[in-house]
């Protein structure tokens, strides 16, 4: 039982990180039709900015979140200006290639900046743990889950109660009609890019104390996030649950089936879902004409 709870919580923590990355991808996909292959690297950037601020400049942990959010928002806007704005009217695949290149640019810029050796960001709680039903749960895990829930609620409110949220929902429901109704996509897209990058950055800061931070960190998690996006059917709520489901599946399968194939389980989910229900779970991404 204790083992199960420990595994379950670690899956839930991992799921929170997947969910934050996947939410950023879906947010952007809904608003602009772009699938962002740089999302994982934005997450790494978040982790590195956190490391830079806390370890190298001895900044406060709370303040760090603010710094990461601001830096990542700017990075997202920059990404939009460089990699999306000039290509808006081109094929979706072209934009995918451009985001992929942007991701590589971030990754290699991080290597130039901090080197490729793995780093470690200290957790605000150190190694302290909480005992729940006899299982020792790291406080960082509780923090990760908590922050993700808060972010999720904030996103929900933003989507349901604000004008921006209504515009994004309209774009997601019917892009052409929404634009005919006067929604200014060109104004909206830098904002959404920034917001989506911010989500990735928060994920990076949360996951950094648990794992070794290296430039390739985010790209490895990207496919798990894609699995969540695909399984969740490109809806915010669905994606969040799918992310948690995939992480739990991964954690339980690693513990009870085979630890050797731990990194293969998200791939398996992608392959199975795409092979079995290509049109059911997934809205087919069509060309963006505006």
């Amino acid at each position, binding site marked *: 039982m204790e083992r199960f709870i420990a595994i379950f919580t670690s899956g839930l923590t991992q799921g929170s990180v997947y969910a934050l990355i996947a939410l950023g991808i879906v947010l952007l996909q809904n608003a602009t039709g772009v*699938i962002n292959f740089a999302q994982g690297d934005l997450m790494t950037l978040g982790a590195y900015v956190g490391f830079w601020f806390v370890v190298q400049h001895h900044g406060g942990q709370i303040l760090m979140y603010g710094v990461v959010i601001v830096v990542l928002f700017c990075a997202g806007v920059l990404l939009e200006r*460089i*990699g999306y704005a*000039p*290509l808006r009217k*081109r*094929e*979706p*695949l*072209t934009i*995918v*290639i*451009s985001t*992929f*290149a*942007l991701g*590589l*640019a971030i*990754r*290699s*810029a991080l*290597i*130039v900046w901090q080197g490729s050796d793995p780093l470690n960001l200290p957790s605000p709680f150190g190694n302290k743990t909480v005992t729940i039903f006899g299982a020792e749960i790291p406080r960082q895990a509780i923090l990760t889950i908590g922050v993700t829930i808060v972010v999720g609620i904030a996103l929900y409110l933003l989507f349901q109660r604000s004008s921006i949220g209504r515009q994004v929902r309209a774009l997601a429901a019917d892009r052409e009609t929404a634009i005919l109704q006067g929604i200014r996509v060109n104004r909206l897209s830098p904002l959404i890019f920034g917001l989506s990058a911010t989500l990735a950055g928060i994920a990076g800061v949360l996951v950094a104390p648990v794992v070794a931070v290296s430039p390739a960190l985010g*790209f490895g998690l990207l*496919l798990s996030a*894609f*699995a969540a996006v*695909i399984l969740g059917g490109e809806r915010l709520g669905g994606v969040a649950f799918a992310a948690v489901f995939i992480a739990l599946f991964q954690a339980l399968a690693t513990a009870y089936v085979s630890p*050797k*194939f731990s*990194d*293969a389980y*998200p*791939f*398996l989910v*992608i*392959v199975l879902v*795409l*092979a079995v229900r*290509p*049109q059911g779970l*997934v809205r*087919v*991404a*069509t060309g963006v004409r505006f």
Partner: protein
Amino acid sequence: MSVSDTHSAAPPLEARPSPLRRVIPPPAYQRRQWLFLAIVLIAGSLVPSVYGGTPYRDGLLAEIMINAVLALGFYWCFSLAGQFTFGVFAMYAAGAYISVWGAKHFGGFWSGLLLAAVGTALIGGLTRLIFAKLSPIYFAIATMAIGGLMLILFREWVSFTGGYNGIGDIAIPSVFGDQLATVHQRYYLMLGVLGLFLVLTICLLRSPVMRELTMSRDKGPVAASAGLKPRHLQLVAFTVGSAMQGVAGSLYAHNSGYFSLESFSIDISLSVLLMVLLGGMGSMYGPVIGAAVIIYLPEQLRGAQKYSELIYAGLVLLIVVAFPGGIADARRIVGKWLSRARSK
């Protein structure tokens, strides 16, 4: 970056003479593909005697050849079949491992090469078949997942691949009973394979099938209503492309006496994409030119190695945004500038 840009570079409507007066040949016939093949073969066989000689330079030339074959395979998948794939690195690895295994058990390099081609064709074709209904972006993600799965499989299946410890005792290629013991000799073998694949590509480009393939790629539903079978055609082109990638892996394996799983990562997919983008996706010259530039140039920029990936990424962005046609399209762009300058 419409793939069809360069194929439809016909003069504007009003400038076109009436079809009654002159029959316009298909775009493919206006290009000098056989001339390009001759240049590649002649230059390819002359370069080693001018540039080569040291093991390092011979190795570099061989690497260019291997990557040209690999990029040509990607060109078949991406430009001809219209399916972007991230799985190039997995096909390359699969080709290498199957080939080593085949050469060991079925007598020699050639059976290994053949098995690698057939094996990767099967994997590629099956992938395409299973994910036939996906949109291009989801197909790209699916190939990424398949590639990742294959790499994990190769990592765990140590008896077949040697895992990270690597695999040695690789058969040395031989032609008509003569062993190709040096890289210099194997280079000509690779040149021959590349030449063969280029001939195959030219035959396709100049055949009516290419017209049908272009239509299936760019206007799938319309092609279907015109009586074509878009998915079948794309499947065939994708399978052939996968086989070429597998052959590139086989050439790599038999050129190196020893290799391990570390040789294969998703970075290969990226550099191949860069080769095809840089060379020009709309033309068969692209992969060859791109491979030569991408392999040769970083060797000359030794001091800037730290920044090499950053430069790669910047290049991809620059090409995607500003020069969608790549180097192969340079003549057209320069011509456009010249005519614009003249008209001023």
